[in-house]
């Protein structure tokens, strides 16, 4: 014991000395720009960078919103693959009814890790990636209002992820720290009674990510309110900024509550308090606190993707977003109403039927603003000049998946239906249509849409379309099978399903599980294609020869972020050509320019080119 403490003390000392060394080394090149008010004031614009150190150090010290956006993106994608690997293992286990490739404990660990990773370490950060990179560009700001806080918010995430995943790393070492098996909802008394310190580490990590999200939200609110350019005001603020503003307000009210509830749970676990004990505050208190955070969290995750689609979809429809202000006001309405629906997750907990009915009423009301957006998107495409590029395909897939995911949600909001379907795979299918079918799809669409700005290159279009179609097919196979499984009564969160054939048709359930597993592996394969495309295109993709890879100028849709990109490209001309590229001699992008409408590169557009042409010929 004493030896351990001494060793740790020595290690801590070495760590501190290393940090001091790092700081001292940075001192050699750094020059100060003390800024009153912490904001980046200056008319130098984006060309006026103070210098950045070379190599990896640049990424550790940057406070540039674009660099931080890239860091968020890379972080989120690492988490996406972690969560994806976890779920593929789970789906493999579920391909047959018995325990075949893992035990229940490991399944539960994967289940917990998958949920928390996808929601907190992928969903929130991938949105932050886009908002960090593009909000300042879209509103004409020099940078975020608080660039350093922005960087702190990002750097809290990697330690958060390490703590959340800690049990997986320490379990093989035999320290008695195993992965948490609490499920992502961390319901008490289960989570309060698991003695495993891995749960404490996970809760601490989650707390850090909550602090991070809150810092980011404060930053975005301040930025959108105070850093807008002269020409941008509430009347012409873009839709993505509106959704980020609403999301940040939701974070501001929801995440501190999660942080407090987590601390209460940690105190219950370690210091014998009784917040969530049966003889104390009751386990239901946890559910109330958790879902008062948790339901706004759903909208925290889904509003910005809705904003992304509202921003990108019109660009490839050749017309402005139909009913722009409807979308803005319904976004705000969702933001408010989302705080009045939390107990619809708790209909079957035995809360008072009168209170339950009220939550049903508000839950049904919140369906309207979401439906309004759907109709606006469809109407935007109506009679438009559709160009089926990869970002557009993901947007359309998003709408399609939202119709299924959203309407299944309306059924679940009705108490009588919910009491039948609660805790079945129907719920799992419903929310996966939302989180995978919408949030991830919009993220992918935005990644493709803005890939040219971030990298100065074009991705490989054929691979991107393969990615889309495999994702779309895989998503619908997997999650539709889950909806049907729910109707058959398959309960959630089980590693096995060897039940009596009198309860439910085991053969059909097994088949549906196998279908879902096949779909999951199709999704997984699609993401591998996508990862290859991103990495290879980043290094070797054809460089852009102008700042309008999507031919947006033709439709008068050249957005502010691409306007910024154009100034950058003009400013950087000359320096750029000196760089040696492996494929420097290759054809430049955008053979479609001649036709004006077809943005796809003929070389890689493959079979889809025809379809695009046909639309154009109309």
């Amino acid at each position, binding site marked *: 014991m004493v030896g351990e*403490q001494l060793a*740790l003390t020595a290690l*801590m*000392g070495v760590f*501190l000395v290393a*940090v001091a060394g790092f*700081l*001292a080394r940075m*001192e050699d*090149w750094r*020059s*100060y*720009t*003390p*800024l009153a*008010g*912490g904001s*980046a*004031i*200056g008319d*130098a614009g984006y060309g*006026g*960078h*103070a*210098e*950045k*150190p*070379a*190599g990896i150090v640049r990424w550790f*010290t*940057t*406070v540039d919103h*674009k*660099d931080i956006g890239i860091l968020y993106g890379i972080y989120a994608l690492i988490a996406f693959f972690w969560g994806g690997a976890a779920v593929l293992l789970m789906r493999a286990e579920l391909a047959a009814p018995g325990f075949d490739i893992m035990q229940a404990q490991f399944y539960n660990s994967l289940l917990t890790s998958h949920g928390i990773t996808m929601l907190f370490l992928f969903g929130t950060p991938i949105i932050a990636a886009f908002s960090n990179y593009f909000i300042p560009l879209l509103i004409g700001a*020099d940078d975020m209002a608080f*660039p350093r806080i922005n*960087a*702190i918010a990002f*750097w809290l995430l990697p*330690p958060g992820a390490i*703590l959340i995943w800690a049990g997986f790393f320490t379990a093989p070492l035999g320290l008695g720290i195993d992965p948490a098996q609490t499920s992502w909802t961390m319901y008490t008394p289960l989570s309060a009674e698991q003695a495993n310190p891995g749960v*404490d*580490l996970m809760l*601490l990590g989650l*707390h*850090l990510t909550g602090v991070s999200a809150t810092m980011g939200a404060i930053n975005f609110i301040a930025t959108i309110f105070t850093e807008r350019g002269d020409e941008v005001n509430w009347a012409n603020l873009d839709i993505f900024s509106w959704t980020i503003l609403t999301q940040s307000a939701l974070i501001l009210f929801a995440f501190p509550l999660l942080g407090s509830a987590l601390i209460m749970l*940690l105190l219950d676990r*370690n*210091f014998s308090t009784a917040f969530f004990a049966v003889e104390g505050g009751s386990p239901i208190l946890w559910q109330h606190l958790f879902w008062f955070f948790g339901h706004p969290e759903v909208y925290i995750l889904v509003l910005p993707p809705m904003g992304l689609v509202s921003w990108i979809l019109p660009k490839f429809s050749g017309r402005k977003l139909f009913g722009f202000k409807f979308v803005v006001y319904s976004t705000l309405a969702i933001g408010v109403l989302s705080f009045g629906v939390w107990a619809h997750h708790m209909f079957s907990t035995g809360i008072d039927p009168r209170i339950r009915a009220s939550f049903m009423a508000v839950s049904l009301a919140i369906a309207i603003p979401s439906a309004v957006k759907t109709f606006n998107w469809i109407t935007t495409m109506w009679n438009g000049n559709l160009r089926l590029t990869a970002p557009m395909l993901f947007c359309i897939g998003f709408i399609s998946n939202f119709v299924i995911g959203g309407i299944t949600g309306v059924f679940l909001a009705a108490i009588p239906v919910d009491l039948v379907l609660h805790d079945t795979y129907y719920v799992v299918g419903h929310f996966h249509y939302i989180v995978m079918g919408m949030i991830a799809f919009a993220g992918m669409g935005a990644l493709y849409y803005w890939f040219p700005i*971030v*990298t*100065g290159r074009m991705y490989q279009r054929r691979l991107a379309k393969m990615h889309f179609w495999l994702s779309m097919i895989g998503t619908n196979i997997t999650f539709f099978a889950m909806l049907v499984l729910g109707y058959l009564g398959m309960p959630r969160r089980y590693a096995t399903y060897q039940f009596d054939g009198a309860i439910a048709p085991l053969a059909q359930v097994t088949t549906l599980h196998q279908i879902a597993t096949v779909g999951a592996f199709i999704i997984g394969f699609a993401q591998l294609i996508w990862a290859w495309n991103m990495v290879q295109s*980043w*290094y070797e993709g054809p460089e852009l020869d102008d700042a309008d890879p999507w031919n947006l100028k033709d439709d008068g849709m050249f957005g502010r972020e691409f306007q910024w*990109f154009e100034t*950058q*490209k003009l400013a*950087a001309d000359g*320096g*750029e050509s000196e760089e040696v590229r492996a494929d420097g001699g290759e054809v430049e992008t955008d053979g479609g320019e001649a036709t004006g409408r077809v943005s796809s590169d003929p070389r890689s557009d493959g079979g889809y080119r025809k379809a695009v042409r046909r639309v154009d010929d109309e």
Partner: protein
Amino acid sequence: MDETTSDDPSPRTWDDEPESPARTSAEEEGPTRTSVWPLVVAMGLTVSEVGVFMGVYPLAVGGLVLFVASVAGITHEAGYTGRPWRLAGALGVVLVAVGVWMVSTQVPLAVDPVVAAVGGADGIVLRGFSVVGAGLVAAVGAAVVSAMGDGDVDDGFPA
């Protein structure tokens, strides 16, 4: 600073324009795009949270010291304070107060009960002492460094 961007991991094309000498000398006009402190603040917060909560005392002391120092550093860098060591010292005093409060929630603040609690390895009392210890390290360290120089910007590391 005439660093080249050739070993930059990201081959971004427009951002890595060659730094002209004119710009380098005039960099004070542009917004700061780098800071060493955010990473350190995040590490300090993480290590101290894990250390204090899990009762790993070396981590608690080291993490809190790191956190206090980096908060002072980043506040100074952002121009909110001209005297970072004074802020670090003040935060150290706050930590001492918090630690004493933690101890006082468990035992009366007198020698015998406190010694008994430490002897009995009372978790909260020991955590309180780790916070007190971190506060003392920060306060004394800040006082010593401050006495060695005037804590001005030009003092160099870590300013």
